[in-house]
Every structure is written in C-alpha cells, then in structure tokens.
C-alpha cells in the first residue's frame, strides 16, 4: 500500500467460493454485500485485506470474503486482530462480530482495542440476540426480553454499544444499519480512512430469533421519524419532512418542531471532532435514557490520536537508529558483565 497502486477490484472479486450459510432473509447478507462493495473501492490490494472474527452467525463473515480471513474463537477477535496489525501494519484489518461476541464475552478486548487506538475497523453486527446458539438474550437485548434463557423476561439492562465505545475512549464511533446500503458503505469507507480504531455498530435483523427488532428505526417508512442522522457541521434535523430538530437547552437536549418558534439556526450543530466526548455521549444516550428522542445514527465521533501500531514502529525504528537495522545478535549476547575462561 505504500506506493498507492491503482487497484481495480469489483464486488465480485471479493466474493469467496464458499456457500453462504446464513438463514434466508438474515440481515447479514446485506451487510456482506455492503462490505464487499465498499472494500472493492478502497484501493487496497486484496491480499492486504484480512478479516478477523470471533464466533457467532455474524462471525462466519470471513468465509465469504475472498481475502485473508481468520475465524477465531468466541469474543477474542479484537485481541487476535491486534497481533495481526502489530505484526504487519501494512495490512488492512477488519474485525467482525455479533453483540454476544463483542459485547458479552469479548467486551474487554473490544474496549482495550479501542483504548489503544490500534488501526482496526471493528464491525459490530447488533441483532440484540444470540443467533448461532439459537436465541438467548444478549447484553444489548434489554429489559423484559423473553428468550429461551429469559422465559420470564430478561432482568438485564442493555449496554448501549456507542456509549460504551465512547466511554472507552474510541476515536471513531458510528452507527448504521444492514438495510442502508449507501449509508453503510460510506461509513465503512470513512472507517477505513480513519487512522486508529474505528468502531461501527450495524443494526442487523435476525429474522429467526429477533425479527423486526429494529423495524421501526431501520424501516423505510419509519426511519426518518425514528432516527436522527448526525452530520458533522450540520444542525440535528429529523422527521419525514425534516420538521423536527434537536437543540441544547443548557446541557439538556430537547426535540422541537421547526417552524414558527424554532428554526434550524437554533439547533445543535453536530461536531464529531470534539476532543471531549461528552456531547457525543449525551447524544448517544438520548435514545436510551430519554425515551421520547429519536435514535441517533451516523458518525458520533472522529478524532485523531497516534495509532498503537505506529507508536510501536516508532520505538523499533528509534531503537535501530544507530545501527540502521537490527544490530548483530552477538552484540546482544555479549552485553553486561562477561568474563573469559581460556
């Protein structure tokens, strides 16, 4: 990648020879297409693409990508991908997993990868359910959810993946959905362009065990009212007729109707580049804690910080400054107090 070759890949070049085995109608199919389309445009040679996943329906993803792929173990993909990227920073490393994989068993590896700001693109397929194990609630399912393992209704409050990622110090945080082809692809490309850990939550429909979990937010007819798109530098406007807006009343968010009393000028202008993630957090939590507000989607945060793997390369390079490469092994042996026996 160092010399920016002109690479012409089409989506089909990224389709592997493996039969796709998700349930018919699963949202994962759409995401697969978006990822293949977006990656084809990245000017990254196919051999430099690596897809790493954990275990789950979502985590079967690497098999269907005609790139290097590693289907690891449950929850550990961010850790394994960290090793891949550190060993070879030239690779474009994509991490894929479900809400169980990344938010339950793998929660710690996720937040540590985000904290370190290692240049991975991490895709969380959130279907608010355990698909592969046939339908238990997940840490994103939320209170009251009746599933095989919560027949009386779950008593586990949900994580908001965006809030958790921001709390961990993530430098790039976005939210999109399986059915939003363009939106999703655009975000994937931005994430790739971002130097550092990029975290994208993709709302994904599990047709078998949690059908319609996001129907309201993702559906064509309802989404304009049910979500608000965060656009950097733009006021927060939503609604089918763009008739609503969100403004900050002190440190309180409020939905207002645009028209006589309020105009776009009064609204909160979104800034994804703020160093202090408080605003992003406030917006992220509004769907969750303030029931009446729409679900924010789009880019919550994008700030620059040194990437982990580059800081490591810098240490290696500066350690080799005097020798212009690896010093002779013998010099390592002979360090310290030595003595000769003749």
């Amino acid at each position, binding site marked *: 990648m160092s010399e920016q070759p002109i690479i012409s890949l089409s989506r089909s070049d990224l389709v*592997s020879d493996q039969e796709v085995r998700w349930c018919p109608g699963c949202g994962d199919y759409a995401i697969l297409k978006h990822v293949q389309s977006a990656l084809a445009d990245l000017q990254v040679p196919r051999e430099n693409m690596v897809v790493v996943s954990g275990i789950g329906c979502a985590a079967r993803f690497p098999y269907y990508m005609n790139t290097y792929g590693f289907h*690891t173990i449950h929850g550990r993909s961010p850790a394994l991908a960290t090793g891949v990227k550190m*060993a070879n920073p030239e690779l474009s490393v994509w991490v894929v997993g479900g809400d169980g994989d990344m938010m339950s068993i793998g929660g710690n590896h996720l937040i540590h990868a985000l904290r370190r700001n290692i240049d991975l693109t991490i895709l969380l397929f959130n279907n608010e359910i355990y698909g592969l194990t046939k339908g238990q609630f997940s840490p994103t399912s939320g209170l009251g959810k009746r599933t095989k393992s919560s027949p009386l209704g779950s008593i586990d409050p949900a994580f908001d993946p965006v809030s958790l990622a921001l709390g961990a110090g993530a430098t790039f945080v976005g939210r999109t959905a399986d059915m939003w082809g363009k939106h999703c692809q655009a975000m994937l490309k931005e994430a790739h362009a971002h130097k550092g850990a990029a975290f994208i939550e993709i709302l994904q429909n599990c047709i078998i065990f949690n059908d319609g979990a996001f129907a309201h937010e993702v559906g064509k007819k309802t989404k304009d009212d049910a979500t608000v798109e965060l656009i950097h530098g733009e006021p927060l406007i939503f609604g089918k007729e763009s008739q609503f807006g969100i403004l900050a009343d002190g440190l309180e968010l409020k939905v207002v109707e645009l028209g006589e009393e309020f105009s776009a000028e009064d609204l909160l202008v979104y800034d994804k580049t703020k160093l202090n993630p408080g605003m992003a957090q406030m917006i992220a939590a509004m769907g969750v804690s303030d029931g009446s507000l729409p679900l924010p989607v789009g880019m919550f945060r994008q700030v620059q910080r040194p990437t982990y793997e580059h800081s490591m390369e810098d240490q290696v390079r500066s350690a080799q400054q005097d020798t212009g490469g690896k010093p002779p092994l013998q010099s390592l042996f002979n360090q310290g107090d030595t003595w000769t026996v003749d």
Partner: protein
Amino acid sequence: MSTPPSSAPPEHSEQLESVVIRFAGDSGDGVQLTGTQFTKTSALVGNDISTLPDFPAEIRAPAGTLFGVSGFQLQFGSTEIRTPGDRPDVLVAFNPAALKTNIDRLRKGGLVLINSASFTSRNLEKAGYESNPLEDESLSAWQVITVDMTKLTREALKESPLRTKDKDRAKNLFALGMVYFLYSRPLEHTISWLENKFAKKPDVAAANVKTLKTGYYYAETAEVFRSTYSVPEATVAPGLYRNVTGNQATALGLVSAARKADLDLFLGSYPITPASDILHELSNLRAHGVKTLQAEDEIAAICAAIGASYAGSLGITSTSGPGLALKGEALGLAMMVELPLVVINVQRGGPSTGLPTKTEQADLLMSMYGRNGESPIPIIAARSPADCFAAAFEAAQVAISTRTPVLLLTDGYLANGSEPWAIPQADELPNIDPDFLLDGGEVLQPYARDPESLSRPWIKPGTVGLEHRVGGLEKADLTGNVSYDPANHHRMCSLRRDKVARIADSLPPTTITGSQTGGDLLLVGWGGTYGSITTAVHKARAAGKDVSSVHLRNINPLPPDLGDILRRYDKILVPELNLGQLVRILRAEYLVDARGCNKVQGLPFTVNELIAAIDAELYGEA
C-alpha cells in the same frame, strides 16, 4: 559439595572444593545486590556457580518481620556446580528475623556472620525471639561472628557528606568486604561496578567503595576469622561467559531463534510472577525486531501472539500457572490452525493462586491436557537457568518447523536462579527456515502437508494470490475448508496427533548419567530438578550405589529410545516437585512400575533428600 572452614590458623588459607553462602536480611538491606556481586566476582575468578534468590511474597514487608526476610543463596566451586546447595556453610544475617528464618538451614559447625547493631529488643521481638540469641546458648552449634557493621560503617564514612540514613545503607558492602576476605576474592570487580553505577553520584560511589574496603580490611586486621579459604578455578570450558537467570536466558533464546529465522518476534504477555521478567527483558529489545504487547489479560496475550504468527512473526506468549489455565481455549485454536507459537509457562506453586513466589512442577499434566478435544502439543522443559537458552531456542525451532504451538516449561527456581552461561557464537547457531509459502500452484491447499513432518504451509497475509480462510472449526484435509465429514474429522485428529508424534524422529539419543546398560535403579527427571538429581546420582555412584539417571528435555513426544532404557533397570524412581505427574505419563506409556518421589513444598529438592530417596529404593525404607 562443601567442605567446612576448619579451625586452622588465620594466616593460612585453606583450599575448598565448593562453598555455599546465604545472605539474608530485610528487603531494604541490599541482600540481592550483595549476593549478585559475590556471584559475579566468583564467576570472574573462574568458579562454577549456581544461585537462588528467595524473595518474600510481599513487595516491601515491614522491616524486621519474619515474612519480610529476603534471601540470596549461592554455591561456587572448583568442580561442576549444579545447584545453589542444600545447606549453607556461611550465613550472613543482617537482622534477627533473617537469623531466625535461616539458621536451621546452616550446616552444623557452619559460620554465621551477624550485624549485631540490628539486634535491638524491638527487632528481636518482631522476629519472635524471647531472649537474645547472641546472648543465650541457642547458637552454640555454629561458629558465630558478630560485628557491629552499622557502627563500623558510620565510622568509616565519618568524612562522607552523605546523610546517616544513606550511610547505613552501605552496611551490606561492609559484610561483602568481609566475605571477600574470607574467601580470598578480589575487590576490583565490585569497585568498578560501583563506580560505574554511581558515576553520577560520586559521593555515593566513594562511600560504597570505602565501606567495601573497610569490611575487607577489618576482617583482615581484626582477625575475625579463624582461617581464610580459597576455592580454585573450576575447569570450565574455555570461552566467554556471563551470568544469566533463567528468564533472561529464555528471552535470549527466543530472540536468537527469531533472528536465525529472520523473523520479527512478537510477545503477547500479561504480567505474572515469576514470568514477568521475560516480558521485561523482551520489552527492551525493540532494536532486534521485538514487539511486545502487555495485553489486558492472558487470553488477549495469547490471541495477539497467534495473530502475530498468522501475520508472519514468531508469536510468543509467556505466563505462569494460573495464566496458562486461562490460555487453554486459545491454545486449542493455535493447534487447530497449525501456526507456530511458543508458550512459556514458568511454573510456580499451585493450585489456584497457591504459593506464587515459590517453585513447583505441578503444571505438567495441565500442559499436556488442558484443552478441550484431542489437542496434542509438544512440551519441552528446561533444566537449568542457562539451559533455558537452548530450550527456548529449541521450542521456537520446533514451533516454526512443525507449525504448532509448543509449550516450554520452566519454573520459579530456574527463572530467578542464575548460573554462568557460555555465550555461544551467534553465527554457529543453526538457521531456521520459516519456509513461507509464496506460490500456491494451481489450486492453493492450505492444509496440504509436508510428507515427513506433516506440517502445513505457513502463508503470510499480504502474499498475492494465496488468500484463504482459517479457523477453529474442523477443516477438510488439504483444502482447509470447514468440514463436518465424520471420517475427515477422525483423519484430521489423527494427523495432528501424528504430526506431534513425529517430532520424536529428530530427537537425539537420550543421555544416561551412570551405567548405560541397566542397573538397580534409574531416576527419571525433568525440568529444574536436573541439578539436584544429577548431583545426587553422582554422589550415590561415588558411594558405590548402582544408580543412574535420565533427564528429559522432551516430554511430548517422549524420546523414542526411552521405553528401551526404562526396561533395563530394576527400579524406576521419578522425582518431581508435584504429587506425581511425569510418573503417570511413563506408566501409561510404557507400563513400567515407575514410582514417584514427590515434594510439594514450594522448594527444590535438596541433594540429601534425593540421596535418602535413592537409599530407600535400594535398601528399603529403613
């Protein structure tokens, strides 16, 4: 073996074959430094040496307490020295607690050198002494020499601009000076080390040097000792030497293997006693292409190492018992994807958190079996601190050439102990060929195997045209695609087993210490007990007993000639620092009635314990 200082006149220096010294005091007393300096000087004058530091479990326990005593034991000699010695000939005790916790180990008639200044009533009480042992009869079995080192040090440093507190810190060098005199050692090495270390604090350097010399001259002038001793040079092989701990040697061995394979080294690790020093050592070797990740936990550490191996580095993870227990699942993945990986387990006292600062060999069966499903992994064990170099090198060599995770077992005793290391010629170490696949031919087969080693190709992401997928699901032979085919599963399980088993073909013939053709008793050991077992066997043979020993480096697979060897001896005894682990493997494998000799005390075997065990086998439990 040690010979006691006799009661000959002081002006006359006696020759000894070997001596065991133990320094003991508070963590703040500079015990480790004193021991290290004595070690280095002795090495430089040509003795063979073995050392063992003995840290308290607490970081900095309150001064004067029994649990806060820090120790450093070393044995030096003119013959081959394989252990830090069973019982000290000399004990240097900086305070009552150090005396209390160590005096029972001192050989009867041995010499104890005491800083009398610390025998205050407060310290005596903290150490649980009801009366002052310097004043009652309780030390009558030993030669006691009390010196007010604190006062004499202050005296010597009257002119020094240092504060009294800092002056007092130097008293360990007073003791060191005395012991240097006792064993006729030169001061120059320690002096130049001090001057170097405190180059920026000339006052401190001067005070330390002065104190060291004062101790030496005080011993000479005051005729403190009844005799002085000399321990002639050992006849060690010529060459360049340096002292290494097991953890240092492990790090060096790993870097060497990576360099000889022309690979970068990636260590994923999470701190844990007594393995952390491997992480520390490697963190400092960026220049040699070493990247280290202090991961969030042991699972992340091994996973990152697998990822690094996948990307074409030599992936390594280091840990100790509880950490290895956490790595089981990921280790299974590494075995399944058949990538090189070295996993180092510096065994410590278990189970659970156990005795974290102590040594043990009780993780062998976990290393063999601690993963779900049939997941064979080669196991290599190091036998002495310096041998960790060769063992680590071999572990990496096997991992790379067989494309498999390899478990390298060391232990707390090896990790912290040190001995002279004959520095090898880097050029003469064998090259290792990572043999990356660059061209997949017509149809890439990521699970095609080398017909001899049964290893599969190592394919680096970034290689044009070799894109493929790997993972933890069972894979079809050759293609590596996911396969639920029953027969394929059996075949793949068998192939993975056979691949590890075939490593045996390249193992050298097993070395037998003692009689080669059989005999009354064979001791079979592994790992850090080498020094004690071998010394015990030598001693027993010298006493005319028909005892031999074999010490295993490779535990999985076992050497192909081992079964034959075992069957040549009437009895087989397996000394281990556990309740019987290798012995179970040997019994299952060879159906020989091998018996265990077991100790789980957080301590190595003493030579005498083993001799007693040998006698019990040979002559009954008399």
